[in-house]
């Protein structure tokens, strides 16, 4: 008892200081999260809310639209995340050898899309992909190709979306990789040089293992970001052609706000939460031993 009182005296003020933040976390994250779990057990729409147990989840298993969205989302993650990680790592590696001024210039260049909203960036891509007056068809037209329907068939539309998303997703990983690479002790490179290691050998033998934690962070955050793709789908394709590019978040949005089935949408959100959690845990498990 006495020990507890002493501890409280010692750390009491600390709790006071973190309290406002904790409450914000509770009100804006934890409470909505818990409420989503609760709503997922209800048939909840304009007509009222009725407890239906796990019916929403049973419905999801048979719902082809939802299953296709889940598959699409996993496909987007599988296509986008590795490219973002590898390309940003390569670019950061190439920028490592540049002088400070050039490094800053490229850093700014790649980070620029990050300060724009996804809506603006997507609208630019919408114009670029436009079949009749878009930049992409103008460019391929210069070499006598096209015009192509960049968003016309499911497979091309998925690749076009990936291309657009990757184009504005490189900035942050590059910054993180550059900072991480700068933190690697120079002695390791000097020792490798003395041993006659080539630049490639140094990159894969020293740089890549030493930035494992950063890679883990980028992989997890990029995966979460891709699982939450919405704006780009909403503006570029509206989920089309014929629902082939719908992602989970887009389907959740449609279920909630078009079909006004908030219970079902909450169940879909719970599934999304579980999938992201599972993937993040798997990624942690795979990468962790290499980073210890």
């Amino acid at each position, binding site marked *: 008892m006495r020990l507890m009182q002493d501890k409280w*005296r010692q750390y*009491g003020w600390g709790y*006071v200081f973190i309290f406002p933040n904790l409450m914000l976390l509770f009100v804006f994250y934890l409470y909505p999260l818990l409420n989503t779990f609760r709503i997922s057990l209800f048939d*909840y729409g304009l007509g009222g809310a*009725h407890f239906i147990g796990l019916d929403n989840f049973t419905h999801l298993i048979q719902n082809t639209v939802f299953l296709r969205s889940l598959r699409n989302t996993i496909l987007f993650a599988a296509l986008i995340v590795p490219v973002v990680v590898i390309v940003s790592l390569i670019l950061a590696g190439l920028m490592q050898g540049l002088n400070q001024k050039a490094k800053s210039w490229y850093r700014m260049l790649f980070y620029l899309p990050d300060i724009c909203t996804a809506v603006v960036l997507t609208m630019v891509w919408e114009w670029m992909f436009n079949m009749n007056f878009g930049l992409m068809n103008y460019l391929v037209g210069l070499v006598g190709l096209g015009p192509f329907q960049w968003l016309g068939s499911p497979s091309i539309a998925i690749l076009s979306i990936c291309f657009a998303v990757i184009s504005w997703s490189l900035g942050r990983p590059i910054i993180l990789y550059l900072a991480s690479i700068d933190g690697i002790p120079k002695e390791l490179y000097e020792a490798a040089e003395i041993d006659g290691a080539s630049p490639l050998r140094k990159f894969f033998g020293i740089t890549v293992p030493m930035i494992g934690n950063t890679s883990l962070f980028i992989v997890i955050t990029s995966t979460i970001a891709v699982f939450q793709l919405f704006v780009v789908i909403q503006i570029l394709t509206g989920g089309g052609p014929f629902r082939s590019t719908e992602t989970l978040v887009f389907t959740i949005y449609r279920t909630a706000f078009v079909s006004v089935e908030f219970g079902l949408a909450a169940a879909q959100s719970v599934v999304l939460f579980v999938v992201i959690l599972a993937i993040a845990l798997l990624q942690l498990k795979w990468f962790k031993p290499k980073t210890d």
Partner: protein
Amino acid sequence: MRRIDRKTGMLATIGFIVLITALLLGGCASGNQPSKPVESENTPASQSDAGGEQQASVQPEASQAEAPQAKEITIEYWTTGPYKNVKGFDTPNNGDYEKIKLEQFQKIHPNVKVNFQYVAPGAVEQKVTVALLGNNPPDILLDSFDRRLPKYVKFNKTESLNALFDASFQLDDFNQVLINLNTYDGEIFALPLTSSFNAFFINKTIFKEKGLEHLIPENRDWTFEQWKDILKQVSGDGIYGTAIYAGNEQADEGFLNYLFNAGAEQWDQNSEKIIMADYPQAAETIQLFKDLEKEGIIPPGGANMKLEDVNQLFLQGKVAVINLAPTLYNIVAAGKKDGSVKEDIELYGMRPVHASGQEPRTSIVAQGYMVFKQDDAYKKEMIFELLRYMASTESVKAMGESLLYAPSRTSSVYELPDHPDMEALMGVMSGVQRFNLGTTSPYYAEVRQLWFPALQSALLGNKTPEQAVADYTAQANALIEEKSKKEN
């Protein structure tokens, strides 16, 4: 000092935590409450409870009726109103005219505060739904009421407006077709302001430049055969005959026009069931457009294009014929002034293209006011007063004229001295019937979402037109059945 600080700090800590927790839990509790009344919202008693939560200051009905005239009230006014550039008013943006009128109303009634909010038409469905679920809808909504009202009426969310009409604000002065659109079991649920219809527009300049002006029908009427022949002749050299769009749900307005005028139907008469698969004309018309795309008469990529893309092509002088509302006259006139539209565009309005032996039909979209459930009798009366003010003869006339929409009131009819072509178009459109878009179905919004993916799959060759129409019909009917089973 330090010891005293610690003791005081400890008390402050506990007090602070208790206070904030109480406040937040109170907030959470009241934030959580809306879900409870929703569970039993169909009962009048629970609605009154819900309203009580929404407006903490709301008093019991009896005392409200006796409330003095000067009682201060706040009215939440949301609008998607398209009216702008109203004659005699500096109103370059949507909602500007309404704001001016609302300010005038507040001067007459200083105890009334109106919170104005413009809502983008694409966001209104979502915004109002969320507000309704949270039990904090606006008091008044100006929107395309025919598209949304059935859902709100079904769930008892809107007020009957029968009491709005009296000797000074006569129901007889309003277009009965528009009134009937929003009447359920004898109760009127929306106050119409304006309405519009779809017609076809030719850019005469393209025909003149190609020496094909003689092809333009003088009687402003054409069958599919004539229309196709004209489009074929005018296409080429970077010009397309017409353009279609199936990139989003607006595809129903534009594309269904062709299907209906080919003789197909989408909904049954009571808007309870989709019957498109019963009409071979539906698949035939989709096939017609696939052929037109192959022949280069319509631009490629229509499956992913949106209304704005098609408008853009027309306004750039790359498309000869377009299917749109007569507000296009104003868009072209304004665009010529600010340089966004090609200078030489000259519009010629036509009746919708139709199958030989079939009378043309068109879609109507109506704008007007809806009032969400009220508990305060005095506030409701002031809302009605506000509606009467906003829908005065002069206002309806001004709003209609600003977009060349038809006014809902007989006394608001305006002349079109600056738009001789529009006047001629109105003449030939007067006998055109309205087709059934299914807007009276409470499931209209959901069913609407199924059509454009079906159309895309047919246009892109993922399915045959017959398959696409059959699958759409089956999916839509399954959805309607599932929804009505769940809700009834």
